[in-house]
């Protein structure tokens, strides 16, 4: 089942075409990676799917529903959970509160200050600890988010998106700025998550995604130049050309 789909999606910034007639299909229950050299348009593609950026033409479908004109928060309410390439957490709130906000949004994002029933609160608390456990941050739940190491903040970044119990988990370069050790840890977490969530992943280090992905889409200059299972991509000459001299 196709959970997320873009149709001829095009995003332009002035004279620059960042995303060029992209047709992307993400199958439910899979880990789908979008790779490409820096500047290929991957993050812009993400941003247009999440709603942060308006496309100049083309459409985005989520569960067969046209979401092209929905706002960021409306798309999040439908079940699109994304993490950011540059760590985008709530620095002065605790780790627990960071994830709690995501979990709570799932339950009642209405803007009225009505009280929340006790059983709901304890459900949320359980969910938060479950998510923190999945990324390995449960023991640091009481820390202020700003006090975490960069590696832990990247994990928190993912945890927040997870807290939404999203139908699609969109991860934008989760390993950005991580040491080799931390990268291995992160990819391990993602592999585990891949068993339970549909994941759309951006990475520019091609070797990282080979193991975890079922499908890989390769972007270059805003276009998708290759798409398929990892073995096919590995052998694809166009992909090799795009990456030669770029690393």
């Amino acid at each position: 089942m196709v959970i997320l789909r873009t149709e001829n999606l095009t995003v332009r910034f002035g004279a620059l075409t960042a995303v060029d007639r992209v047709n992307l299909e993400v199958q439910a229950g899979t880990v789908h990676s979008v790779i490409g050299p820096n500047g290929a348009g991957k993050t812009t593609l993400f941003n247009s799917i999440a709603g942060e950026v308006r496309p100049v033409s083309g459409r985005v479908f989520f569960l067969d529903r046209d979401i092209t004109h929905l706002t960021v928060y409306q798309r999040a309410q439908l079940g699109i959970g994304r993490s950011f390439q540059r760590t985008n957490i709530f620095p002065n709130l605790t780790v627990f509160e960071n994830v709690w906000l995501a979990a709570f949004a799932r339950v009642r994002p209405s803007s009225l200050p009505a009280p929340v029933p006790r059983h709901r609160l304890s459900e949320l608390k359980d969910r938060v600890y479950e998510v923190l456990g999945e990324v390995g941050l449960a023991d640091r739940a009481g820390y202020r988010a700003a006090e975490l190491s960069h590696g832990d903040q990247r994990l928190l970044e993912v945890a927040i998106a997870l807290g939404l119990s999203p139908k699609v988990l969109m991860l934008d370069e989760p390993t950005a700025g991580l040491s080799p050790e931390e990268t291995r840890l992160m990819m391990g977490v993602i592999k585990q998550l891949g068993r339970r969530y549909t994941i759309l992943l951006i990475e520019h280090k091609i070797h990282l995604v080979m193991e975890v992905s079922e499908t890989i889409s390769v972007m270059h200059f805003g276009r998708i130049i290759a798409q398929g299972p990892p073995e096919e991509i590995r052998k694809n000459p166009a992909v090799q050309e795009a990456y030669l001299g770029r690393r």
Partner: protein
Amino acid sequence: MAKLRQRVGGFIPWAVLVILILVLPDLTRPTVATEVWVFAVLALAFNLLLGYTGLLSFGQATFFGTGAYTAGLLLIHQRVHPLAALAAAALAGGLVAAVIGYLCIRRIGLYFIMLTFAFNLMAYFIVYQASSITGGVDGLPGVPRPPVNLYVLTWDIRSGIAYYLFVSLIFLLCAIALKKVVDSPFGLVLQAIRENEARAAALGYNTAAFKRVAFIISGAFSGLAGALYGMLFGIVPIDTIYWVTSGNVVFMTLIGGTTSFFGPIVGAVFFIWLAETVSVRWERWPLIVGLVFVFVIFFFRGGFVEVWHRAYGLLARLTQRGQPKYGHSKD
């Protein structure tokens, strides 16, 4: 054991507050003491926007003044029950905040500040021009203080000390209500918006709607404070809606400390003390406010509360009592 200490710890500021309420009339005139709690409500309402939501609104006087004039006019012309006047003032403040909030919230940063400022100016000039109703630049005199009739008892609040008790009671109720708001999930979402609005939206929160609701709550409590002010001196001066008052609220809230719930109360105490006590010795007391404010901006952004925390922490380290808690204080 830690839980108990947290519980007791959370109780301490309230205890201090109650003690202060009981002691204040002995330290200064009843009207000054009453004014402290009136502005404390206003500052708490303002901090809901600034400290918790991250919105620097430069027009708090719009709601304060609206509430003051609404209550004043109702009391003068309709002789309503004081509690009804308070309710009407809160309603009026909330309504005006709803309208202005709806118009201003969609703008960001700079434009938001200038818009709240612009609406404050407009409100001032409307009141100025409508002098047949509002008394214009001379203010609205003759605001009565009818007794508080509660069926079983009637409370005459005309004496200075009786009104002081009335206001401090209302203040406590307002403070408890606002504390409940900021401690609720709604309050946490507001803080998330302050910390990182884009991320809050990416989680599914309609951030504009949350901000509008915060604005309305703030406006309502500010209006209520305005009503209390009007009844305090028996006159509603046009200052209540003048933009300088908005600035004063900003001053006292920041000086007290925006990162703590109780900070603005400290700021209100400090400001009113300066305004009413120091002012008789030295008319140029605003200079002190300005200088303290600059000091706070540069060295103690968390205001007096931060000074307190740091001093306490230093003391604790010197006597080796234990680890003080840093970061955003939840007390």
